[in-house]
């Protein structure tokens, strides 16, 4: 077929290019710019090459924070995904219960993140917080300010409270799209409750679960606001995640070079891990 060549077509693409350039490419490039140079103010820059990257990658601080991130994401995914599926399976499919459940489920998602942090910060306080005070009163030692274990528990429970709903809503959407005939056929085939889940519900939820998994992974890996408000990265550095470390480096210490290098490394890690998860999870689908 004869193709029409017309360079004016580029004008059609231009608005998008400009938008993307200003919203993503140019800001990212300034970060790249900082990551390979050193500056002492006065707008003077000195070429630093890959020094900042080497410095970041060789620092224990980076590896410790990265480990914390991986552990945190691992734990919340291991809890939120199965818990979300379980809740979605038990939600009503018809009747008045549906809107009630959906609204209740959406509520935590609508709360601004720093408010979530504040809620839990107050909730967990031993002097005035309902949770902290109650635990203290019944004799369970709990103090997220100076106990590493308690600080982690608080952050994990907070994240579960905040985000499990997202998994629930996605799974629920997957579940209600299964035609009734599947359940009837399973009944006729004599399938057990487990077999119905394993061979009908889980396969039909696969796509939404992939989305839920990726979203929860990326979000939890980038978590900043809530731990910043609740623990401020402490006690010590026990809850200092990469994001908190990054802000400390960039704004606290004003080390723009290392901070820029860290940002890029951080970004590449998320990109890489998401890509790996996506490939692995969609590949198992294609093998047939």
């Amino acid at each position, binding site marked *: 077929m004869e193709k029409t060549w017309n360079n004016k077509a580029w004008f059609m693409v231009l608005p998008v290019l400009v938008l993307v350039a200003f919203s993503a490419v140019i800001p990212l490039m300034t970060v790249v710019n900082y990551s390979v140079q050193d500056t002492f103010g006065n707008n003077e820059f000195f070429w630093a090459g890959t020094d900042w990257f080497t410095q970041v990658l060789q620092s224990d601080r980076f590896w410790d924070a990265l480990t914390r991130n991986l552990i945190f994401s691992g734990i919340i995914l291991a809890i939120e995904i199965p818990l979300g599926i379980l809740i979605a399976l038990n939600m009503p499919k018809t009747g008045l219960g549906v809107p009630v459940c959906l609204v209740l489920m959406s509520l935590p998602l609508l709360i601004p993140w720093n408010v979530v942090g504040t809620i839990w910060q107050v909730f967990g306080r031993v002097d005035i917080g309902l949770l902290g005070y109650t635990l203290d009163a019944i004799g369970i030692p709990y103090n997220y300010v100076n106990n590493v274990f308690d600080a982690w528990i608080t952050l994990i429970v907070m994240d579960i409270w905040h985000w499990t709903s997202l998994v629930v809503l996605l799974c629920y959407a997957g579940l209600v799209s299964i*035609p009734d*005939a*599947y359940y*009837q*056929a399973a*009944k*006729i*085939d*004599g*399938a*057990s409750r487990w*077999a119905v889940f394993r*061979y*009908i519900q889980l*396969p039909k939820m696969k796509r939404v679960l992939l989305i839920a998994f990726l979203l929860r992974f990326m979000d939890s890996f980038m978590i900043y606001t809530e731990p910043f408000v609740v623990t401020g990265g402490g006690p010590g550095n026990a809850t200092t995640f990469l994001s908190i470390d990054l802000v400390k480096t960039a704004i606290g210490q004003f080390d723009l070079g290392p901070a820029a290098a860290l940002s890029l490394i951080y970004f590449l890690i998320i990109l890489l891990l998401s890509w790996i998860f996506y490939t692995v999870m969609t590949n198992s689908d294609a093998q*047939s």
Partner: protein
Amino acid sequence: MARINLDHIRHAYGPNPKKPSDYSLKEVHHEWNDGGAYALLGPSGCGKTTLLNIISGLLQPSEGKILFDGKDVTNLSTQERNIAQVFQFPVIYDTMTVYDNLAFPLRNRKVPENEVDRRVTEILEMIGLSDRAKKRAQGLTADQKQKISLGRGLVRSDVSAILFDEPLTVIDPHMKWVLRSQLKRLHKQFGFTMVYVTHDQTEALTFADKVVVMYDGEIVQIGTPAELFEKPKHTFVGYFIGSPGMNVLPAKIDGSSVDLDGQKIALSFAPKFAAGAKTELGIRPEFIRLGREGMPVSISKVEDIGRQKIVRATFANRPIAIVVHEDGDIPAEPKITFDPAAINIYADSWRVADSLLVGGEA
């Protein structure tokens, strides 16, 4: 396989039904023979799927009992009734192979694995999917998927009946013929009791030994295709079966003479019916002869459908259809006669028995 008795079954979806109109399924009381092939035919919403789900046990009837081989199964679950059902849209377990799909109902019932293998191999052969046994069921075409749904029903050697709920809806027309004749062959070979729900008369008439016509929650007639065609028990059956449907004309009946808006016809019998009933005469387009003698009609349109012509005409101020052979002559001053043996008389839409000599009565 089983003989199925429907003992005074009624069903209402709402609670506390009182009026007859509250019932989606009005009283059904019938016996279906072991090894018979039945088609439930009717328009959408006439209650045929309700009846099917009552037989399979997916639905509990509000009233009445269901018996399989004389055993009351009304309160038994679908599994306990040993029913196989094929749905409108193919239901397959995507993540399993074709083989595992077919083995699923057996494995759930803890059938020994060597028996499973024997049955599944046999069924794969039967539905012609042996070469795909180890493939995932996901990538198959709609008709192959529907064959798997069917196969999962056939794989259990002990099923009481196989129920089909409009199973060929999503299948391409040319595959419909193939699948339908395969079904018919399987039925002949293995003698399952089969109940087949459809709104397509061709499907019902070609598949079943006995067609059960339903209308507005009621069974209006059970009969062989020939009975439905020649002696429709209800004017609805007349309209619904046949293409075009039966001509139904308002008629005044006095003894054995019929007055069709001025045109008089003598019947070979004197129909008996309750006084004041609305009386009608039904005649199929195939049994009206168009020629130079008889009662005058005015022709409005002639549709040529290949082997036949359908003549649309006005007779006694009513539209009627007449089927004429391809080479049939259409005279300038057309007149019609009715084949006396093919005339049916209806009182309040129900057929009035013509004589004791003619079969098809109940």
